[in-house]
């Protein structure tokens, strides 16, 4: 039974069907010429309509500007051009399909035909011949006897892909310590995202949330031509009553109840600002990691394994909020070299 060379005819379900193929039933279109003609007319109508819709498509393409909108009730206010082009093209294509299948079902022969299967494998003589050819080739090449050639060839072939892999090295720079660093440093002013205005402590009420970044980030972005700095440096500022802060990552890292945390999730790096001001919880919209900002940004739920890094803040001479120092731990997701 488990013999792999068993041929098809002697296995499985036997050659002769136990029950014969049911008798062929004639369709209405086989017996009634009028029904057949009707089916023919239906098919032709669909093909003709399809052609008409193509004309409609061209008319819509030429006449309907892309900025026109039309209200379609429950579907909404939709773009007329997209609607008309799609309906005419889709309709034209669909009608060809329905017509062809209607034709096949109603008018083409529908008597089931039986075909024999043959074993999938090659006949034994072919297998023998193939093996013999292979043997001849091996013998003629001397691959078996000439060990030195064989071994050096295998060695050469094993090494030949190495340059192809080495060439990939310049796909990017080596990481170095860059994942540990952000642009934040002592004295950097904190500015509101989008408007870039600096912030005074009194600008924040209890319960205020501000998405912020270091001053000069946009200029840096311009200079570097990437968003790399922003992807690590963005922070949120929140304010709670000082007595509500149970723990911080460093002593007096807040400023009168104003706390600054990284905006980048420590799980896989989504930006988070779903701050729930009553519970002080910060929720990630991607995988629902939840951090308690009143308790050192520790994880209270979800897949993130690390607390949200806190940025120590203070005010400068002019009374604006600034970073008291850079981040004291890497922001964003963990990586192999990150360590404790």
């Amino acid at each position, binding site marked *: 039974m488990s013999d792999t060379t068993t041929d098809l005819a002697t296995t499985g379900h036997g050659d002769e069907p136990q029950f014969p193929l049911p008798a062929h*039933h004639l*369709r*209405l*279109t086989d017996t009634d010429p009028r029904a057949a003609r009707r089916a023919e007319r239906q098919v032709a109508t669909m093909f003709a309509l399809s052609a008409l819709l193509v004309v409609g498509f061209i008319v819509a393409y030429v006449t309907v500007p892309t900025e026109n*909108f039309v209200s*379609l009730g*429950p*579907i*909404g*206010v*939709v*773009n007329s051009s*997209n*609607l008309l082009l*799609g309906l005419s093209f889709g309709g034209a294509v669909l009608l060809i399909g329905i017509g062809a*299948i209607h034709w096949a*079902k*109603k008018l083409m022969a*529908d008597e089931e035909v039986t075909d024999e299967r043959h074993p999938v494998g090659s006949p034994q003589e072919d297998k023998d011949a193939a093996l013999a050819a292979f043997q001849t080739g091996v013998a003629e090449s001397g691959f078996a006897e000439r060990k030195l050639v064989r071994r050096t060839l295998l060695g050469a072939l094993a090494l030949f892909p190495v340059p192809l892999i080495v060439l990939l090295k310049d796909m990017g720079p080596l990481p170095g310590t860059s994942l540990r660093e952000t642009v934040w440093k002592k004295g950097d002013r904190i500015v*509101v*995202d*989008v*408007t870039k205005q600096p*912030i*005074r402590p*009194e*600008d*924040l*009420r209890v*319960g*205020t*949330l*501000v*998405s912020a970044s270091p001053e000069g980030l946009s200029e840096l972005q311009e200079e570097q031509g990437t968003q790399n700095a922003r992807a690590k440096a963005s922070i949120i500022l*929140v304010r709670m009553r000082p007595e509500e802060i149970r723990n911080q990552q460093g002593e007096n890292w807040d400023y009168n109840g104003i706390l600054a945390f990284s905006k980048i999730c420590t799980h896989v790096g989504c*930006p*988070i*600002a*779903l*701050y*729930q*001001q*009553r*519970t002080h*919880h910060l*929720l990630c*919209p991607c995988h*629902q990691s*939840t951090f308690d900002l009143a308790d050192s940004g520790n994880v209270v*739920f979800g897949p993130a394994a690390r607390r949200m890094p806190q940025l120590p803040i203070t005010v400068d001479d002019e009374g604006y909020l600034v970073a008291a120092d850079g981040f004291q731990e890497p922001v964003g997701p963990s990586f192999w070299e990150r360590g404790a």
Partner: protein
Amino acid sequence: MTSSSVRRHKATGLAVLMVGLLTTGIGYAAVTGSAEASAPTASASQVEAGKKLYLEGCATCHGLAAQGSTDGPSLIGVGAAAVDFQVSTGRMPLAGPTNQAPRKPYSYSADDVAALAAFVSSLAPGPAIPTSEDLNTDEASLAEGGELFRTNCAQCHNFAGKGGALSEGKYAPSLMNSSDKVIWEAMTTGPQNMPNFPDTTMPAEQKQAIIKYIKNLQNGDAPGGLALGSFGPVTEGVFIWTAGLGALLAAAVWIGAKVR
């Protein structure tokens, strides 16, 4: 635009100018008139009426002196805007203990809401109800509103303002039926678990821009057709597995079916 056409058509210019001035004048009067109505100047009697309403409907949870209790936060300093937001959207008074006060048909008349707001704002200064000038979005930039919305609002309310889930059954509600006044009040006061965005970090022009963007979202433009709730790929997936694949399977069954 109007002024330039006036200059071009001198013959009709004067008439148009007159009509223009007249309509502007009437419009201005109407606007300022309504502004006064919606931003009530708190008279002593109004505060008194508000206090009465407060003691009847709110004091059980928020305390006799609005100092707050285990059942409700302190209302001292929340301002008229908070009262107007909570009561005019029916969130307060709360029907029963829930994760979060839901929007529902409101139970107070506009006068009562104004009286309550007057009373609460008499306790301590707080965010005021926006004036119609505050809510004028004519000058606001739609694109800037979009950028501000994506930076400050979309994380909870979703990219199309359809709302989103928060922790433990709480949620950021849909903004599809929110009036511009309510949106403003929510931003300044930070109701429930929403953080607040005071004018100091988000000036009035920015709030106007955000309101303009949300109003644009409320128009329901769907260039590509049925928006499937604007919930992103999840509803698209549901659609392909039900309607989409359903249609193609129906076609397959039709193709495979025997003709009689």
